[in-house]
């Protein structure tokens, strides 16, 4: 448990993806079975046991510490698990030597699976006695189910794959058939065993991704080689149906990284009654019209789905590829061939919840550019609000996992752009810890002669390394106040820095003072030439807003 705790501790502070990978792979290398397998399960969220309630933890610490000292400590630390981990008194009944070894992760996980509710407090306090501060912290995070360490399942699988010089795709393929502590997986990765076989009747297949196209790319591309479709602003899903050993149809929905999200979308499952694997976009469709991503967000990241939600936000699958038809794997066919099979498959399904992603007719890049500029006039009609650009797919592209070069391209519609004024700058993390690289910017509001800046967003990328240096220098020389790692930067009508900010969309927000929240904001350009008084006003943003006030969005991932 202590080694797992050390790993979690280190990961919690490490900002760099590659460094996180190194730490996890190193852990898998030095820690033996079955501990490392349970660690992989803990990180990927594959463990299931009844979580301990915070109240139980409070009771445990209350029995052992002075209430005033606990209150002062909790107030200082601000996190219950951490306070308890740090304050937990050393057990005085215990002899100094011959202490039992601290529990292993395996012991903790296997015990928790079968532990009765009444036994929990005593078991937990025994473990807390035996562990050190970091161990206690990790244990409490684990048992309360609050292990937020910023590691995706995908990253953990990539780290495991590195152990055997394998690709994460290979693990994703066999993952649904594996279970903790993954002895067969590690045996294979270390060259001691056969590759585990995925016996799942509805397995995930690693997805194919597109590159963002640049203007210069078109010169080398021939329009006739490509099929174009709208890029829908929903979430990428893979819908797979298969027959299990008993001959029953099993249907699963996967996210683009292979997470099983079937439980969130029960309304779509009956429509997927034929064996096969569809690659497509999950959208909310009301009265035949595709709704915006903001609307779809109401259905994302929910464990329980109420009948009301199902009725008001009906989901729909817009199919753009077919990876398997009945028993046959189609990934070795060309896109044009797969598209034909897909058309037949969707027709056979005959379900209004599943339709074909329409293609866009074009014979030159100019024609396609025109369609991208005006989707509603080029076939998207009333759904054009939900179109965020066009997709280009080579007719002869096989279905390859990852982001193969030159096969699929995404050509997003031009972002919205506003001129905003830099108000605050914060130091970045990791490589950027010596740079002020996170910027809060605002636009003007109020009467012309008494205008105030109101913050409308935050951005920390989009600029070049050279521009970062320039902004950093500007921030250091124009600081008006410091709040820890944050600096307030001069923002007067005639003094300050105007940032051209690009963003994908806007929605109302109750969390921000300005009442708006931007989607995917980034610094597009530095407007050294522009005085702050000429930056945009809040009304400009408000004009972009349509639709109702929505609660805060769940985490998104739309492409």
């Amino acid at each position, binding site marked *: 448990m202590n080694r797992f705790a050390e790993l979690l501790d*280190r990961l919690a502070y490490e900002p760099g993806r590659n460094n996180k990978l*190194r730490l996890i792979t190193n852990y898998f290398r030095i820690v033996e079975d079955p501990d490392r397998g349970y660690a992989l399960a803990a990180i990927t969220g594959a463990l299931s046991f009844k979580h301990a309630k915070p109240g139980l933890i409070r009771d445990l610490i209350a029995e052992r510490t002075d209430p005033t000292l606990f209150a002062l400590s909790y107030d200082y*630390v601000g996190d219950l698990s*951490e306070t308890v981990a740090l304050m937990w008194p050393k057990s005085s009944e215990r002899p100094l030597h011959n202490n039992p070894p601290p529990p292993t992760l395996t012991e903790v996980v296997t015990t928790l699976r079968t532990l009765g509710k009444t036994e929990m407090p005593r078991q937990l306090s025994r473990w807390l006695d035996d562990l050190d501060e970091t161990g206690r912290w990790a244990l409490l995070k684990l048992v309360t189910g609050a292990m937020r360490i910023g590691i995706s399942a995908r990253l953990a699988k990539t780290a495991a794959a590195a152990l055997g010089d394998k690709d994460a795709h290979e693990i994703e393929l066999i993952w649904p058939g594996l279970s903790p502590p993954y002895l067969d997986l590690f045996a294979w990765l270390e060259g001691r065993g056969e590759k585990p076989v995925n016996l799942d009747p509805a397995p995930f297949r690693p997805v194919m991704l597109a590159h963002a196209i640049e203007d210069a790319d078109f010169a080398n591309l021939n329009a006739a080689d490509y099929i174009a479709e709208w890029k829908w602003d929903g979430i990428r899903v893979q819908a797979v149906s298969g027959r299990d050993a008993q001959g029953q149809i099993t249907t699963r929905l996967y996210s683009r990284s292979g997470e099983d999200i079937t439980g969130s979308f029960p309304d779509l499952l009956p429509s997927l009654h034929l064996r096969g694997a569809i690659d497509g976009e999950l959208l909310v469709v009301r009265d035949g019209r595709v709704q915006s991503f903001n609307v779809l967000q109401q259905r994302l990241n929910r464990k329980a789905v109420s009948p009301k939600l199902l009725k008001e936000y009906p989901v729909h699958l817009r199919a753009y590829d077919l990876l398997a038809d009945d028993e046959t794997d189609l990934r070795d066919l060309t896109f044009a061939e797969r598209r034909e099979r897909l058309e037949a498959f969707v027709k056979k399904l005959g379900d209004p919840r599943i339709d074909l992603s329409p293609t866009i007719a074009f014979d030159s890049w100019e024609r396609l550019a025109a369609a991208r500029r005006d989707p509603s006039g080029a076939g998207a009609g009333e759904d054009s609000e939900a179109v965020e650009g066009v997709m280009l797919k080579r007719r002869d592209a096989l279905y390859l996992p990852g982001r193969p070069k030159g096969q699929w391209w995404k050509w997003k519609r031009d972002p919205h752009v506003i001129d905003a004024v830099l108000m605050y700058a914060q130091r970045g993390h990791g490589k950027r*810890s*010596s740079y002020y690289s996170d910027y809060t910017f605002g636009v003007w509001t109020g009467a012309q002669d008494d205008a105030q800046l109101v913050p409308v967003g935050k951005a920390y990328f989009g600029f070049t390394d050279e521009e970062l240096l320039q902004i950093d220098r500007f921030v250091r020389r124009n600081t008006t106040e410091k709040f820890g790692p944050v600096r307030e930067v001069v923002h007067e009508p005639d003094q300050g820095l105007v940032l051209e900010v690009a963003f994908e969309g806007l929605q109302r927000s109750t969390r921000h003072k300005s009442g708006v929240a931007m989607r995917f904001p980034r610094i597009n350009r530095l407007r050294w030439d522009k005085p702050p008084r000429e930056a945009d006003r809040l009304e400009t943003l408000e004009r972009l807003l349509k639709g109702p006030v929505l609660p805060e969005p769940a985490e998104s991932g739309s492409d």
Partner: protein
Amino acid sequence: MTAKNHGHTPYINNMRPQDILTPQPAGLCCKPGGFHIDPVRPVARAVITHGHSDHARAGHGAVLATQETLDMMRLRYGDNFARSTQAVAYGEELRLGDVTVKFHPAGHVLGSAQIAVSCENTRVVASGDYKDAPDPTCTPFEVVPCDVFITEATFGLPIFRHGDAADQVEKLLASVALFPERAHLVGAYSLGKAQRVIALLRAAGYDAPIYLHGVMEKITHYYQSRGVELGEIRPVKGMKKADLAGTITLAPPSATSDVWTRRFPDPVTAFASGWMRVRARARQGGIELPLVISDHADWDGLTATIQATGAGEIWVTHGQEDALVHWCKTQGLAARPLDLVGYGDEDGGEDETASTESGDA
């Protein structure tokens, strides 16, 4: 020690501890002795516990301190930091006015002392900053029996338990081994902490050169001149970026998030401080490798020391006074917070000097 002597002159009879040492805006004042301890404003006669800048300031008339503390003040402020100085050794007793003064090792940094002030049968000990944990760079802390113990409370909450510093250095070395292409940058206070971290690295068997930020060079060389073994120390200035891969550099905390760090290849930012026990503190500072190494007593150290002194009355100063005063009362000890201002904790304070000097350090 607690038995009071009755008889003698009425003056002595009325001598209460708060008459021996009294908090004043300038610092803790000993009226019967005619001096202040660690005054924050210029005074005629100052008795200094240790060399950290919030305790040892320039501009006093006469200064009494250990030789090391006087040397450190001279390094920082120049030769004329006081009109006159007098060096005192640990265990040496001096008569000042109506009191006797005796210096005892505080274990905080090189030359740090607790100051025992005795008047007739009452002894008050002002501990300055102290720690009871082992430290190869200074004389170990010594418990001084007394009637009134004045304790610091920098880490005066039961969440602060520093653990074994050697384990933290192992953590640092494991990281250096795992990321040989990156530089490790360890934020540490220039006086005391930096040298202790170096000594701990040496004790762990690390024998490669250790690099230093410019502002730490003088004080580190001073430690070496006093016989503290630190192995090969090099200035980081002038080093090529690529050559710093796999190395360890010590720098003042404020420099580790400064432009200065751009000379290092993909640096791992560590920070050696007792504050690193609290995750929010470490994250706020953008620290990637928190090292819980402190030169102050932790909660267990504070409470054990208070009990060991046998003092019936505890005065608590700079830090988390409330919790420690509360604890003393639960132990049946008279306790009160002492309102002294001007003492920071060396790791917590923004050390802006380092960042301004760092441009070229």
